[in-house]
């Protein structure tokens, strides 16, 4: 994935002006237009030197960012305009590279969200799984540390609908939490209780969304986990169902301790509570079996909620087990985040870096990372 990063970091070359006033592709020499982002002939990347003419088909649009108002019908749409990530070739209408045959990732396989400068998320298929059944949905107000909502759902069934269901669930939950703004409440305790109540409502709405997106005749009902954090200034209210997690990771030297805020509903957690050391519990048989989830066959989808008053600077991290499988302890994640954000505290850069790090470690599961910088 470092290749991928390098590619996106380096600006593609601009088209070369010719003596007759036309432009040529720096990769293959074919004639190109000033507004084109990719060469028609070889698919090589170009830096457009002119705006797209009005009314031109929108095929050269930059990668779509799934943030807020993307319709669910757009899922699984193959983005044909981007060149092949493997060889730079042209992606055919069938969704595969016309040169090397590599499957073009769909929007669902990998997407990022960046609703405000201090909040971002990255959701990725990983390496070993054929489909991305994880989902993130985040929202934030523009001002640093004002109000943010982070939601992660991890589709846990192999049924046909889990990828659709988890995304629907995450988005519905986010929308509930964005809309539900307790205001004018007297005491901090009542404010906390109101936000926690909103998280319970959000989980319930997400559960309904999963069921709505499960085919009636599906024998293997779609299901997913749920983890959400609502940040209001230095107050973090969180809740979860299953084994997606919420962490508070203060910057090194700022005083506070890195903390795993959520408590897994999993066999491993049950063992830990019975005294088994964490590492042993998390690698034991059935460790990843979860004891609570959202979905048609869910016995109980009420999230365990909690809250914490944090002392910035630091990161609120909501993630799926695709990340924490490779760094479970809060202190481990704290060091990792410190290392990966050393260059820049940009949450999108860090979210992508964490996903790439997990893929580098094997990427055995789908990976979701949602971050708020406080």
């Amino acid at each position: 994935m470092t290749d991928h990063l390098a590619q996106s970091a380096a600006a593609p070359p601009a088209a070369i002006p010719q003596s007759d006033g036309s432009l040529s592709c720096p990769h293959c020499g074919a004639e190109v237009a000033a507004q084109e982002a990719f060469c028609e002939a070889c698919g090589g990347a170009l830096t457009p030197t002119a705006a797209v003419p009005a009314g031109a088909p929108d095929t050269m649009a930059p990668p779509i960012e799934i943030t807020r108002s993307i319709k669910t019908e757009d899922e699984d749409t193959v983005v044909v305009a981007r060149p092949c990530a493997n060889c730079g070739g042209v992606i055919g209408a069938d969704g595969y590279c016309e040169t090397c045959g590599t499957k073009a990732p769909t929007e669902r396989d990998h997407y990022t969200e960046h609703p405000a400068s201090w909040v971002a998320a990255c959701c990725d298929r990983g390496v070993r799984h054929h489909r991305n059944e994880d989902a993130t949905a985040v929202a934030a107000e523009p001002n640093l540390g004002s109000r943010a909502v982070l939601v992660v759902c991890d589709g846990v069934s192999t049924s046909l609908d889990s990828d659709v269901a988890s995304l629907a669930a995450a988005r519905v939950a986010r929308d509930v939490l964005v809309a539900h703004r307790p205001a004018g409440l007297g005491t901090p305790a009542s404010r906390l209780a109101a936000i926690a109540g909103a998280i319970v409502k959000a989980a319930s709405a997400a559960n309904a969304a999963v069921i709505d997106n499960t085919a009636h005749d599906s024998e293997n009902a779609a299901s997913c986990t749920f983890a959400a954090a609502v940040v209001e200034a230095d107050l973090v209210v969180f809740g979860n169902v299953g084994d997606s997690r919420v962490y508070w990771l203060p910057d090194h030297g700022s005083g506070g301790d890195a903390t795993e805020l959520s408590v897994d509903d999993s066999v491993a957690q049950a063992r830990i509570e019975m005294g088994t050391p964490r590492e042993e519990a998390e690698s034991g048989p059935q460790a990843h079996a979860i004891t609570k989830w959202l979905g048609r066959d869910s016995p109980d989808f009420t999230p365990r909620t909690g809250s914490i008053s944090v002392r910035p600077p630091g990161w609120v991290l909501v993630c799926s087990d695709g990340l924490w499988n490779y760094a479970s302890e809060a202190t481990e994640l704290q060091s990792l985040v410190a290392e990966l954000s050393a260059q820049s505290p940009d949450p999108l850069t860090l979210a992508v870096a964490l996903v790439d790090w997990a893929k580098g470690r094997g990427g055995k599961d789908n990976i979701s990372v949602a971050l708020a910088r406080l």
Partner: protein
Amino acid sequence: MAEFTAEVYQNEFLPEGGTDVNAIVTLTCSGAGSAGQTGSGDAGEIIIVDTSGSMGRTKLEAAKVAAAAAVDQIIDGTWFAIVAGTHQAYLAFPLVRSGRGMVQMDSNARYAAHQAISQFRSDGGTAMGTWLMLAGRLFDSVPGLAQRHAILLTDGENHNETPEQLTNAIHGVTGKFQCDCRGVGVDWQVAEVRRIAQALLGSVDIIPEPDQMSQVFAELMQQSMSRGIADAQLRVWAPQGAQVLFVRQVSPTVEDLTSRRVEINPLTGGYPTGSWGDESRDYHVSVRLAAKAIGQEQLAARVQFAVGDQVVAQGLVKARWSDDEGLTTRINPEVAHYTGQTELAEAIQEGLAAKAAGDDETATKKLGRAVQLAEQTGNEEATTRLRKVVDIEDSETGTVRLKRAVDKVDEMALDTASTKTTRIRG
């Protein structure tokens, strides 16, 4: 308007390090219309009849009836000609010495053709290459013929030409027309005539008795007239660096197309399939890829059906690397079935060749294997034919004994039908 579909049957899952992808692609055409009637160009038919001395009175009279029956099936407007073949080739109809060597069918032409056929006399030798070359020139004399088809009848070996001469003649006309070949009686060589039929995208079969000829000819011509798609091509795209191991037609008959590749572009090969009526044909495509990491997916082949320059249907052959043995060890039933049928055709042909060469041991082994494969793949027709050549002791293990006295017709029928495959059962 003709419609085309492509369906792919495969197990796309490969184990770690797996490289070879096999798929059966079923191409189907419906609404093909009639030859020469779809606005894409005229059709041409040539009937080539062996009139060598060996035909004798009985076979020649039957051949006259058969040629006339074929003429009766040719749709009005179709260009046609009749060639009488001995050690030379004669244009029996139309009666012209220059210019266009074919005429368009109408009631007058049909009557005149019947008259010409009735004049056939049995005399001279056999030179099939010369017949084919005359047919090629006749087709070329009519500009703009979109669909060109011939029926060739012979009764004997190609005495008056060397195998090289025949080979050169076949090369000279390959791609110019399609040719269905029929041998009457038992004095002709299956391998020799099969060579012509395979190169010219046609069928080969035996007509055991002269009186069966006219029905066979009428049916062959009907079939040709029902092929409204003049010329279609199978195209196989494989990714850069991949190797197309083979491309075979596996239904209705086994034909290895691998060596017939013509380059469409560096990654795409075209394979001629001739004309199409309303029918389905199955193709087995095998591609070797560079192995990718577990979890990766890529396209192994795009299998396309092209009419003219237009791709009218496409099937995608995929590769997905997985560590789930439940997925990667699954053998696709269609691939397994046709792999068995291909081996069956080879076993029959090799067994009969060994038998002809007096190598009874190899013949017994190969035909035994054929019996076993016919049983496994449910090809009852092949089993019935094999039964006439060998005594089956145990079809499961392929234990057989060569029959002492075998009717030559049965042996040749087994040979000509060896490439016929059955479709997989539900």
